[in-house]
């Protein structure tokens, strides 16, 4: 297999153009591609549409790209915990498309799997249904939803090999696998980059066929939003 390894985040994101549609993995701040976000701040690319379950916090994650006004539109299921986001939204500087979380996950999965549309009950009877086709199956009402695909998907994994095979850790998996499959170009940053053959083929979560670029990230902060402990 050919190697998909690039040197670092800067090299991985260098050709992401203005107005690109990106997917960024993560749930809250868990499993987000920290290195690539930092690199995007440096390239200064603007007009981005970011598909990501959340929008980070004011000073971490996608929140950093909001501060620098690089994001034109967010497609997310929940965008709390971010004052700058709220300010830009209320000022009309930012577009937001809110999507039920399961529908978001399935639309991305459909994008990667070549399914242009599917039916889900989520949002029937709500404002989410506006303008959408409604159809009854087996006595229940469903909405038709379409696939989501990206120009670049940026994911964060625990371990990866040079062919782009990925293993995630804990709940940091979340949206990352579906996004990896839904990108025209998929960039994976990993904590451990291992040689071919070191990952057990039976334990790989994301097959390398979906990944075009991979690099070993550094200096992961892995910020915790709600540190809850027991004794």
């Amino acid at each position: 297999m050919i190697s998909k390894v690039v040197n670092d985040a800067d090299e991985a994101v260098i050709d992401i153009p203005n107005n690109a549609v990106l997917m960024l993995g993560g749930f809250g701040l868990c499993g987000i591609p920290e290195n690539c976000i930092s690199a995007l701040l440096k390239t200064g690319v603007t007009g981005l549409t970011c598909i990501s379950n959340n929008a980070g916090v004011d000073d971490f994650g996608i929140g950093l790209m909001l501060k620098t006004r690089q994001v034109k539109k967010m497609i997310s299921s929940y965008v709390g915990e971010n004052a700058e986001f709220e300010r830009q939204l209320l000022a009309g500087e930012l577009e937001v498309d809110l999507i039920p979380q399961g529908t978001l996950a399935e639309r991305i999965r459909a994008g990667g799997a070549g399914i242009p549309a599917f039916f889900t009950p989520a949002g029937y009877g709500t404002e989410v249904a506006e303008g959408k086709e409604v159809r009854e199956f087996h006595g229940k009402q469903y909405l038709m939803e379409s696939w989501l695909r990206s120009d670049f998907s940026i994911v964060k994994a625990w371990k990866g090999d040079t062919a782009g095979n990925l293993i995630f850790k804990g709940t940091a998996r979340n949206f990352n696998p579906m996004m990896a499959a839904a990108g025209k170009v998929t960039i994976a940053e990993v904590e451990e980059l291992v040689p071919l053959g070191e990952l057990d083929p039976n334990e790989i979560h994301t097959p390398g066929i979906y990944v075009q670029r991979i690099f070993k990230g550094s200096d992961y902060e892995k910020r915790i939003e709600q540190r809850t402990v027991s004794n």
Partner: protein
Amino acid sequence: MLDKVGIAKRIAQEVRDGWYINLGIGIPTLVANYIPDNINVVLQSENGLLGIGPFPTEEKVDADLINAGKQTVSMMPGSVLFDSSESFGMIRGGHVDLTILGAMEVSENGDISNWKIPGKMVKGMGGAMDLVASADNIIVAMQHRSRSGDSKLLKECTLPITGIKCVKKIVTDLAVLDILPQGGFQLIERAPGVSVEEIENATAGKLIVDGDIPEMKI
């Protein structure tokens, strides 16, 4: 009248052995603390975990292991990790036996509003719309009245809807109520020291009171 813990304790009585349960943020999360020891349930976190354990000790805190409320958690023996698509496949496919969540309003036909208040910043519905549209068994945990004293059990919801005809049971600080298939809040139990009249006064939607209404046993 029940406090939050009381509501959680009463809901815990609805839980059956072997169930898979999704708990929303707030009072629903408290329910986990009051499930009897002889009842084994598995808690689902929609960000990708079946088998949520207690909060970790300080040494075991792991940024890569959180629940849907973004709190650090631990795992139980038999826990499983998966991605968001699989997680909502479980939810949408009806594999979760019970969903417990909070609400701002519930209508007498089972509609629920809990995601958006006009004029306030919209944060998004997260997984709530998927949960309410998919689950067969939904219990709402909430205060019977808003802070300004208005009933939250209405003929029709006034706030934007999260899902329609989905709530089956409500446990409030005042009462346990079933929502009937044909519509209406059937009063099942009174909170300790609360009269039927008080519940009638606090319920704007159609309240059905059949015979003697027992007091809850917490």
